[in-house]
């Protein structure tokens, strides 16, 4: 009897593992496809052969510039930002056990963006320094929202509501800085309000790469705590998780990801919000889906960028497309939650 039951559980476990493996592979293949399209298509279409020759270092007139300076940074930044937003958003949502508690809804991303745009346009800084300051700003916003949401006891509903207010305020700051930097041309504004991959430079890639790799590893390693935290704080404490430490570590790593990605590509709208729920829809609840969420994020950014560039006649920055994708899902989520009578807190 007992062994039968064990076998059943074991089988289920194996089945879920296979599902994760299959879905991860499919996601990677789709991302690779997007990458190929991004490298080959454009004003001029280059063959894959040409692309590889250029990447190996061959000089081909026209192609080298287009591929190395225009398309490659776009692809890499899109990929890495997507990963960063996906992983970070998913971590926030899992920690707070609410899909709406995503950093791009509760103002953390806007905080990073406001700081980045201030450093770049007013203080004329560039490179990693910008990312570090936007990290500090993101942490500050997260901390302030968290402390403000203690009234008579902490409430997630209140945290989200306060976050929405903080978001509005920080967006006002960003608009102000854009005006003061006398850069209120449409592309710059859209970049810092919605996120865009236009004109990103290759030299920002290494820093972003290091951040994404280290912080994702950190979050995956803390992931087993994340899985226990999903059961609720009380259970987690009973199971011996140092809840406070785990929380702080995970939030810190997530804000790190968001700040670095935001300072390069701007706050690409809704990616952080959408990736986690899509990933958990794909692989089922109850597992920590840090990596799949990251992959979904990368896929969202690359696919939306392709749509924005080629599908619509006008070239739209990626954030406008993802912004439009995010809103219906948010409404769907609200309707579903309300129907079930779940309280949002």
């Amino acid at each position, binding site marked *: 009897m007992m062994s039968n039951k064990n076998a059943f559980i074991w089988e289920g476990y194996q089945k879920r593992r296979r599902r994760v493996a299959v879905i991860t592979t499919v996601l990677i293949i789709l991302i690779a496809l997007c990458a190929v399209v991004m490298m080959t298509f454009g004003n001029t279409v280059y063959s894959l052969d040409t692309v590889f020759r250029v990447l190996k270092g061959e000089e081909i007139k026209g192609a080298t510039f287009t591929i190395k300076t225009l398309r490659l940074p776009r692809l890499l930044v899109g990929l890495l930002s997507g990963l960063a937003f996906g992983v970070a958003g998913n971590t926030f949502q899992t920690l707070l056990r609410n899909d709406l508690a995503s950093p791009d809804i509760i103002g953390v991303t806007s905080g990073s963006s406001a700081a980045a745009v201030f450093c770049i346009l007013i203080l004329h800084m560039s490179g990693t320094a910008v990312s570090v300051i936007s990290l500090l700003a993101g942490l500050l916003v997260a901390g302030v929202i968290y402390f403000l949401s203690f009234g008579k006891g902490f*409430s997630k509903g*209140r945290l989200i509501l306060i976050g929405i207010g903080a978001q509005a305020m920080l967006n006002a700051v960003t608009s102000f800085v854009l005006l003061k930097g006398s850069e209120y041309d449409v592309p710059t504004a859209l970049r810092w309000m919605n996120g865009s991959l236009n004109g990103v430079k290759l030299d920002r890639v290494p820093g972003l790469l290091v951040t994404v790799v280290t912080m994702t590893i950190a979050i995956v390693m803390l992931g087993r705590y994340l899985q226990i935290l999903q059961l609720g704080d009380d259970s987690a404490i009973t199971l011996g998780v140092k809840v406070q430490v785990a929380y702080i570590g995970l939030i810190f790593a997530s804000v790190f990801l968001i700040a670095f990605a935001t300072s390069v590509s701007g706050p690409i709208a809704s990616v952080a919000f959408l990736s986690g729920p899509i990933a958990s829809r794909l692989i089922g609840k109850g597992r920590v889906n840090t990596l799949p969420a990251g992959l979904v994020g990368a896929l969202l950014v690359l696919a939306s960028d392709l749509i924005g560039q080629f599908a619509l006649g006008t070239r739209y920055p990626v954030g406008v497309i993802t912004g439009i994708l995010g809103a219906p899902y*948010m409404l769907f989520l*609200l*309707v579903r939650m*309300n129907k079930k009578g779940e309280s*949002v807190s």
Partner: protein
Amino acid sequence: MKIRKKLVLFIAILAAILFCVLLSLAWGSRSIPFAEIIDILTGKGGDSFNVDVVRTRIPRTIFGILAGAALGVSGALMQSITRNPIADPSILGVNTGASLFVVCGIAFFNINLPQQYIWFALVGGSLTSAFVYAVASIGGEGATPLKLALSGAAVSMAFGSLVSTVMLPKSNVMDDFRFWQVGSIGGAGWDDIKIIVPYLLFGFVIAICLVPSLNSLALGDEMATSLGVNTKLTRGLGALAGVLLCGATTALAGPIGFVGLMIPHFMRSLFGPDLKYIMPMSAFGGACLLVISDVMGRLAGSPGELEVGIVTAFLGAPVFIMVARKAKVKSL
């Protein structure tokens, strides 16, 4: 004694408006001394360039007073018909809905008259607010503050993206109409004032007539019904007036948020819960806030101008957070 206190407050607010108007005429990228303004206004003349500057600032200031009053009353109406402390035209999506419809009208139907803007804005505003409220009311406990804020935020997010999408291919149009993304009263002239006044008057009259019914509504639907108030009619008319006031303003000035949230709360803390005071005082307070925000935008943005919608968002968001902290979160 109490009446006297209210009278003093009332006079103080009127004085504040007068002061804001003076500032609005005086300050900007070119500042003019107060004495000279009074000379110009009384027709004693002054530096001819300054006369022109003041003349262009007059319609803008009057428009600011009207728009602020409309937004303040609109907020007070929305808060009392939904009985929800964070209801505000911008949170209910009226602003962005109105904006989206006007922008679509310009892009796809070639509308170009202010009258047409207003009608598109009114249709857009009412559809959007109805939709937001409907989404928030699904489920057992009705439209709680959090659900309302979230569905409003979702809709604003979607519509904001759509406004950008519609406008981006027409970047020549975009420069002229940037204020449909962030509200501004900078371009307002006498024509705008003439067009908007009838709509606003209609809205104000409905709002004032509704005051007794809304006061009963504050006691709860059952109590109000037993006091002989038709709750559905009251809510319907209140929503109509609220959308009329806010939609007409948005049609000519773009989405200006948070005025309707801040002012009624502030007035409630000064005058108590009776709408007999809150409704007119919200008009005065809104006018004061919008005019002073516009002045702040001019000073902060100089030599350019910061749209008034950005200033009100910056001032209003902390108030929103305060209200959210106090709101009953159990029901959130």
